[in-house]
């Protein structure tokens, strides 16, 4: 049975009783059974609950009641987003058996909308990584080429959508963790404006950068999911209070947005095939009557350095709570190894965290502590925050001139397993085009670039804060031509 439905198509089929919700869920669970022992997008699959929920939806439809757009829709959830009563590992051994005691706000909203959670998806440990190779539970494969990574840290969610194992998925993005895997797997991913979506119930990595966001097969699907998860939340004081407008755009009514291409994103390091496909996209918009001009974001070359100072600092603080005392994995008692018991809590903490955290996590915790330490704080952390404000200012200046800033999403397409594991900097460089949007707090969308190669490539669009609709309008236009 066909499974690669869009949310809109699946909804129509359900509403017109052409398929039942149970059949819909079964189609996706079948895909998971067929492929996921190879792809490994999912860490947990909720087969029984999904069917129970699907039965309820079918009864509702039988009674003649109308169903909402997301009702009965199978959604995959990244494993750093809490679903009450379900395991949440954040891809780490230290939370291997942790069961969430509350729902994230985005989950509560989706439950209200009647969505069905198919399960939790794989990720780099604590969202630290760009390939999902840093998961404590094994990597995920890119469904478009299984010798290559799906990207990260939302690699499981991206692979699940690309492989037809769910209708759409939730991911999280701190430095590109939605957009880069979306680009690598050939799907759509949105990092919302900072403050558009509540972070309550998201296992925190870097609190001034994190956002939960939607990933889907089409721009329209991504927009549907975004609209159901966004909004002010009293439980997250960084969410914006005012209600956000939305409109149902029609292709013929796509506003003639002005597009800027920043030259700093087209320098060396950009793969030739990517450059060609990107330049094609620029020509495409010109031919369709959009104004496309050069802009400059002069502090772009500093962005990765700024990110790799601010993010580890915030992450090392956020990960201090994992000590194995109240929850999570606790270090095995040394008595079990014939050694003297832990003398004190410090020893327990050290052993627990030493065993429970992987290599990349330890690296960033240590780096973060260093940049925050006495004598180095001003030179590193404060300096980085100052440069961050310059990066943000660059964007605001550019947005005086243009409505959308367009760049490649990544410097190269998906790389092979192991290719970037030896040199952390090589891995970090795959985020060079995505970190800026997190630093400036602006929304950014990755859509598949039209290209003839088998390997997907991503086009990134960035817009002013809370102007996600501009991104959807332009992305939708590109997708349909």
């Amino acid at each position, binding site marked *: 049975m066909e499974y690669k439905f869009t949310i809109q198509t699946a909804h129509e089929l359900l509403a017109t009783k052409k398929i039942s919700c149970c059949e819909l869920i079964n189609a996706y669970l079948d895909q998971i059974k067929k492929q996921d022992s190879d792809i490994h997008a999912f860490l947990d699959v909720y087969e029984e609950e999904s069917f129970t929920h699907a039965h309820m939806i079918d009864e509702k439809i039988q009674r003649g009641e109308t169903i909402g757009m997301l009702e009965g829709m199978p959604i995959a959830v990244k494993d750093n987003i809490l679903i009450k009563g379900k395991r949440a590992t954040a891809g780490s051994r230290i939370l291997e058996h942790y069961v969430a005691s509350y729902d994230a706000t985005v989950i509560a909203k989706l439950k209200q909308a009647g969505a069905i959670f198919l399960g939790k998806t794989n990720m780099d440990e604590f969202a630290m990584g760009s390939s999902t190779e840093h998961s404590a539970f094994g990597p995920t494969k890119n469904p478009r080429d299984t010798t290559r990574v799906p990207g990260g840290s939302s690699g499981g969610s991206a692979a699940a959508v690309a492989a037809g194992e769910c209708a759409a998925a939730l991911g999280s993005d701190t430095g590109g963790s939605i957009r880069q895997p979306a680009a690598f797997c050939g799907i759509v991913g949105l990092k919302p404006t900072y403050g558009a979506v509540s972070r309550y119930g998201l296992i925190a990595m870097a609190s001034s950068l994190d956002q939960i966001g939607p990933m889907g097969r089409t721009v329209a699907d991504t927009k549907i999911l975004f609209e159901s998860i966004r909004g002010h939340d009293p439980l997250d004081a960084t969410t914006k209070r005012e209600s956000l407008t939305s409109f149902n755009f029609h292709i013929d009514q796509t506003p003639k947005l002005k597009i800027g291409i920043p030259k700093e994103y087209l320098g060396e390091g950009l793969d030739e095939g990517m450059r060609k496909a990107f330049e094609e996209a620029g020509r495409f918009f010109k031919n369709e009557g959009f104004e496309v001009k050069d802009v400059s974001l002069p502090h772009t070359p500093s962005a990765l350095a700024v990110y790799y100072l601010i993010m580890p600092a915030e992450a090392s603080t956020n990960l201090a709570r994992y000590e*194995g005392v109240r929850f999570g*994995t606790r270090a095995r008692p040394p008595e079990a190894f014939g050694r003297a018991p832990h003398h004190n809590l410090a020893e327990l903490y050290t052993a627990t965290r030493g065993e429970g955290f992987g*290599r990349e996590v330890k690296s960033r915790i240590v780096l973060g502590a260093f940049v925050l330490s006495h004598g180095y704080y001003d030179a590193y952390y404060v300096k980085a925050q100052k440069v961050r404000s310059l990066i943000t200012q660059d964007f*605001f200046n550019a947005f005086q001139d243009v409505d959308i800033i367009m760049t490649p999403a990544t410097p190269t397409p998906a790389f092979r397993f192991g290719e970037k594991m030896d040199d952390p900097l090589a891995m970090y460089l795959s985020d060079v085009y995505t970190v800026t949007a997190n630093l400036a707090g602006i929304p950014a969308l990755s859509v598949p670039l039209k290209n003839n190669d088998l390997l997907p490539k991503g086009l990134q669009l960035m817009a002013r804060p809370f102007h996600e609709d501009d991104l959807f309008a332009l992305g939708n236009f590109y997708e349909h031509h």
Partner: protein
Amino acid sequence: MEFSVGHLAALTRLSLDEEEKKRLESDLAGILAYVDQLREVDTDDGEEVTRVRLNSLARQVAPEINRLREDVLPSSSGDEPAKEVAILRSGFPEEEEGYLRVPLVINKK
């Protein structure tokens, strides 16, 4: 830049074996060399300038400051307390008769 992985690991309560220590030392040396480029960026280093700049950028994005909610539980705070506690208890790494078991907190040395 001077830093000691051993010292930082102790501060952050991370146990590292010799191999991990060596690898962290070399990885972090590389990263710190890379981020050092920020020295060259002119940030017009007056603190007042930065504060004003950060504040005005923040206002463009979210023109609200310190809007807090009331310190009360939301009206529908989920299941009955017993169920909520049961979930929390199920996460205790070590428990004894419903209590969370932890090692000695105060060291009588």
